[in-house]
Every structure is written in C-alpha cells, then in structure tokens.
C-alpha cells in the first residue's frame, strides 16, 4: 500500500508539472529535498544517541521492570482470557513498557512473543479476543516521549522543541483509551450476534 501511495505522489506530481509548467520547480525539488533529507537524518543522530543511551541505563537499572509491576493489575484485567500467571502477561507487559519509552526495536520481539503465547492459548489460526485487544493497544501508540519528533523540531530551529510533549501524551492517552473501548465494543457485538 505504501508503495502505491509513494509512487502515486511522484507520478502525479510529474504529470501535473507537464501541464502546469512547473517542471523547473520539480527538478529543483528532487535534488534539494534529497539533500535536505540526508542533512536531517544526520542531525537526528544526536538526540537518538542520547536518548537510547539513557534508555539503556533505565533498562539495566530495572526501571522498566518496576513499571511492568505497576501495570500488572490493569493488564490482567484487560486480558480476561489469559490466566493470571501465564507467560503471555509478562511479554505483554514488557512490550507495553518498551513502547512507552520509545524502544520500538525492543518492543517488537516482545510483542511477537506475546502473540505466540496467546496463540498457544487459543490454538487456532484465527485472531483471538486477547490478540485483538493487544493489537488495539499497540496500534494506538503508547510513546510517552516522542524523541524523533523532538529531534526534527530542533533541526528546524523550533523555539521550544519539547512543547509538543504534553499534547502528545494527552492525545496518546485518549487514543489508547478509545482503542480499548472500541475493541470492547466490537467484542461484545460479536458475542451478541452469536
């Protein structure tokens, strides 16, 4: 899908330029924007290095584990199909806490592990209730501190690069809560139909 959208933008742009006589601008855009993208990526290094460095300390110091303990009662309630002491709960918790700190690379393997465990419980190739709840929580993003966005804002000389942290957290909380509610709604609708 992203392939189509990507190619579509470039193709439509070039065709439109033929009729709109903006070929000159398009030429300039190709090389200037490629250059800009490279400069930007290199500029991102500073923030990413610093943040992932701090996160590594947080991980080793057991802060992520502590947080997982804090969320356990909530998560157990969100996944009524999974027995309380099942390993799936542990993986779900590590996935959620890693996501909260923007550790996408650490979150994905944990998420896949959680899915495997949930599949053992359901035993079919059909998505179970808990799998969909888990997906809903994951797709609504749980990131507390949007590091990359802050880095980009710094690159473009924002007067206050971090001013969007508060709005992001608020939007994330609303997004995640609605994801859980929407998931519950569809679940109860599907049982009601049967």
């Amino acid at each position, binding site marked *: 899908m992203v392939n189509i959208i990507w190619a579509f933008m470039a193709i439509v742009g*070039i065709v439109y330029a033929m009729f709109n006589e903006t070929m000159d601008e398009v030429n300039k855009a190709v090389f200037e924007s490629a250059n800009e993208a490279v400069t930007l990526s290199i500029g991102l290094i500073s923030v990413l290095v610093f943040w992932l460095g701090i996160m590594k300390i947080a991980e080793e110091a057991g802060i992520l584990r502590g947080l997982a303990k804090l969320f356990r009662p909530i998560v157990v309630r969100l996944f009524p199909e999974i027995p309380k002491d099942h390993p799936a709960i542990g993986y779900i918790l590590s996935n959620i806490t890693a996501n909260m700190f923007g550790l996408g690379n650490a979150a994905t393997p944990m998420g896949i592990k959680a899915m495997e465990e949930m599949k053992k419980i359901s035993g079919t190739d059909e998505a179970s209730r808990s799998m969909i709840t888990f997906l809903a929580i994951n797709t609504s993003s749980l990131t507390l501190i949007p590091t990359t966005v802050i880095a*980009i804002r710094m690159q473009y000389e924002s007067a206050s690069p971090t001013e969007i942290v508060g709005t992001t957290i608020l939007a994330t909380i609303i997004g995640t809560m609605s994801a859980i509610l929407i998931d519950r709604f569809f679940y109860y609708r599907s049982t009601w139909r049967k």
Partner: protein
Amino acid sequence: MVFITQVSLWIIPLFIMFVLLVGTWKRVPSYELFVEGGKEGVKMAFSLLPFLVGMIVAISIFRASGALEAIIGLISPVLLFLGVPPEIVPLALIKPISGSAALGVTTELIATHGPDSFIGRLASTMQGSTDTTLYILTVYFGAVGIRKMGYALKVGLLADLVAIIAAIVIVTLVFA
C-alpha cells in the same frame, strides 16, 4: 493549558535525573551502558535515512508541481468546515500504513510550515500519538501465522481516527 506546556518543559530533564539516580543507586555502570545504548542510536539514524530521502523527495515533487495545492484546494471547503487543516490530510492518510513514511511527511510539514506553526505542532503531535496499524497487524499476525484477523483491522483504524481527531482538538485548545 499552561499546565500542559509546563509538563512538556519539565518531563524530560526530570526523567533523565530519575534514571541516573536509580542507576547510581542500583550500582549499574551508567556511563558504559549509556555508550552501549547510544551506539544503537547511530544505527537507527542511518537506517532512517533512506526512508526519509524516499518519502521527502516524493512529497516534494508532489508539492512543487502544484498538484498538492490543487487537491487541497478541492477538499479544503469541507475540511475547513469541520475544523481540520487540509495540509494535514496526507499525514493522516499515511500514518496507519507506514511509520517511517509518516515521519517523512511530518518532517516535510515541519520544514514547510515551520515547527512552531499550528500545522507544525499538529503534525508533531499526530506523529507521536498514533502508531502504524497496518504494519503492526502485518508483523504480529504474520509472525505467528494468524490468517483470520476478525475485527482487528476495524478496531485499529477506528482507533487511529479517534487519535487523529483527539490530536486536532487538543492542539487547537492548547496552542490556539
């Protein structure tokens, strides 16, 4: 609303202090761990590079040709009536599909409109507040061989829509 901008200002320094305090208390080798984790940051920045180049060039062509403006002009009456800035539409469409592509769109919006403009703040908030539903669906279900997705896609996309609306409302309230 002043409170939210204050939180934004304090949360990162306080978090750094907290991590370093706990790290020192637990006697982990803070500095060495920092360096180890930092190496991953270098890798991450370089792996983002081709995504950003590809997406930013495509959007730049689309914008420079005048095609983006034409489409925005076409749909803007409806969107403005709903209180949605039309410039944000490409980001809203691509966000559920690909995270790194969306990052490219966000970057382009920030570069064009400025990070402290309404569009810049909205794009920043949206980028951070939803994740890429289709990617997560493909990776997680694909990895464990789930073929029947049930209502998973519906839930994911609806939740994205709510998050996008929430971002627009919140940014309007806080910064307008």
